[in-house]
């Protein structure tokens, strides 16, 4: 398949990019830092042993005017477009976001408004081609509001709602939308936090994501244990949530 991957230079996206080329897919990496994109593209090219097409195009999640050109370039470089995958997002600790309004605005813009605007560009293009798959990383923290992830969780809750709606409306027309809800995954993004039980590794999460894309699973919890953790969490009464600190 021909996949555009936004956020493939780091963390889960890096692991997913590697898995995609190893499984025989063509990849166009989208991201902000062009030099860094090229280094990641080289990594993928060497891993694919020259067998797959790997390219890169500039796309900045903080600047929505870059979205359409980035997707057009990706389509051109790939010679088509089957999958659009978004693993990019911003994270910051709640305390930091509470004291830094500019940071809070950037996080909300990146994770909610602009991710959705990017998806809208992708939706149009995939539908125009007769369908495809849009796979976006949301988060378990969008399932239930918790003290340490209020703003981040809110941005992801909104994103999850959008992705679900998109899938309801357009699956019949050939556009599958996949909302991935990773639990705690050990990456650079979470490096400052102490990992809870059931923390996942990016390589394992990437495998789950690719399987969900191939099967068309509309909502994926990964690592799988988080489905049950969140089932409990969603059903905890308010007075409990008010007390717990995680």
């Amino acid at each position, binding site marked *: 398949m021909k996949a555009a991957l936004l956020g493939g*230079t*780091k*963390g889960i996206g*890096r692991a997913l990019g590697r898995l995609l080329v190893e499984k025989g897919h063509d990849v166009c990496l989208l991201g902000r830092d062009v030099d860094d994109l090229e280094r*990641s593209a*080289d990594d993928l090219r060497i*891993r694919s042993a020259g067998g797959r097409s790997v390219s890169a195009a500039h796309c900045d999640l903080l600047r929505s005017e870059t979205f359409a050109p980035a997707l057009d370039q990706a389509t051109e470089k790939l010679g088509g477009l089957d999958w659009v995958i978004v693993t990019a997002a911003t994270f910051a600790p709640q305390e930091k976001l509470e004291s830094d309004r500019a940071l809070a605005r950037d996080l909300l813009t990146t994770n909610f408004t602009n991710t959705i605007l990017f998806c809208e560009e992708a939706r149009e293009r995939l539908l125009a081609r007769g369908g495809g798959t849009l796979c976006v990383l949301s988060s378990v923290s969008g399932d239930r509001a918790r003290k340490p992830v209020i703003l981040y969780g809110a941005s992801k809750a909104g994103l999850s709602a959008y992705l679900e709606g998109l899938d309801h409306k357009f699956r019949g027309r050939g556009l599958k939308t996949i909302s991935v809800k990773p639990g705690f995954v050990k990456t*650079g993004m979470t*490096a400052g936090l102490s990992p809870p039980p059931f923390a996942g590794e990016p390589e394992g999460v990437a495998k789950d994501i690719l399987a969900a894309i191939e099967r068309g699973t509309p909502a994926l919890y990964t690592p799988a244990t988080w489905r049950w953790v969140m089932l409990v969490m969603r059903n905890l009464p308010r007075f409990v949530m008010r007390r717990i600190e995680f």
Partner: protein
Amino acid sequence: MPRPETPQLSGWGRIAVPGREIFSEDLRKLTENATLTRGLGRSYGDSSLPPPGGFEVASTVLADRILAFDETTGSLRAEAGLSLRELIRVFLRRSWFTPVSPGTEYVTLGGMVAADVHGKNHHVEGTFGAHVEELLLRVADGRIVRCSPAVEPDLFWATVGGMGLTGHILEVQFRMKRVPTPWIFEERERFGNVDALIEGLKRSAKDWPFTVGWIDGMARGRSLGRGVLNRGRWAEPSEAPKGAPPPLRRFTVPVDFPNWVLNKWSIHAFNALIYHGHVWTRPRVIHPEIFWYPLDRILRWNRIYGPRGFTQYQCVLPDSAGPSAARRFLDVLMGAGGADSFLCVIKDCSAEGKGMLSFPRPGISIAIDLAVHSGTQRIVDRLNEAVIAEGGRIYLAKDSFTRAEHFRAMEPRLAKWSQVRRRWDPGLSIRSAQSVRVLGDPA
């Protein structure tokens, strides 16, 4: 003062100090003003631990991209955090392998350079550093410097085996080796004492690219140092199975074993099993990971030593000390009461590498795992005195207990290395717990 909730960091031997790793894919940014970088933390002692008061070490493990590979020469360039395990996963099925491998694949390229690792093929290929073409370092003043055997050679050879103290290793470029198949042809031979085992190692070195000996650390008297010699080569296409070796199932030691699990009797039983068990193994073609990394199949095997932790003592006894040096060393070891070890490995080393502090030199290398207890310092002191008397030296990547005065006595090369280090880092801003302990760096 460290409170109980202060994060702790340890090497593979699990002797912890207050410390924490910081992570980023962006190694250049992460190493600005860093005291020390650390890879996968497989050095046994305190090589990868912060100096007292240092606390944070920069972890390279998220910087793991392959940057360039030349199919014709095998030259590969990657970020320092790329693990040997991942390298082998990607390249062995394409018939490429690392030129030199230590006994575990849970190491990073940066760590392999810093410790200038050696392996079963030392008698043929030397250390890893001999195959390194170029390094990219962040040096103490903040600059990013390329060095190689031709460019800034002093910095290069001080960094190869320099335990990460000359600069933060950002990128490594080295030559991979072509292999005929990804499988190994292996055979074993048993020897009744250490002299015969060493003789067997030297004899096998002529015809076999990979050799290593395992010693029964419990045998005494006439059987002192009896053991099994393991030798191998890459299998030829005619004898190898079709296809690539499958991923191996791995096991995890789930919890710390209580300290009493490893005792004289259990270790004795284990050693006897290996020594006598060899008769069932004929020459055969085996999975490369079973040959190169038998212990890696058991994840977190360091837990079998329990919460007290353990150390490894590895030294090289030079050829100049004569053929009976190994026997004398084992006698000292038994006398010091340090022999209750379930892992004792022996290997013949060939020519010394160019790394200014590189460990191997022509002679016999012996490595022994020792559970830590109140007498460990005394045992290591006794062993170090014996090694100094033989003109040998120890391997810093394994060490937790060596005293500065003993290390100085073993290392006439130290002055030259320190001179280069100070040229690049006059304030000694890059330090480790080990450099404070062994080199006398300011804490």
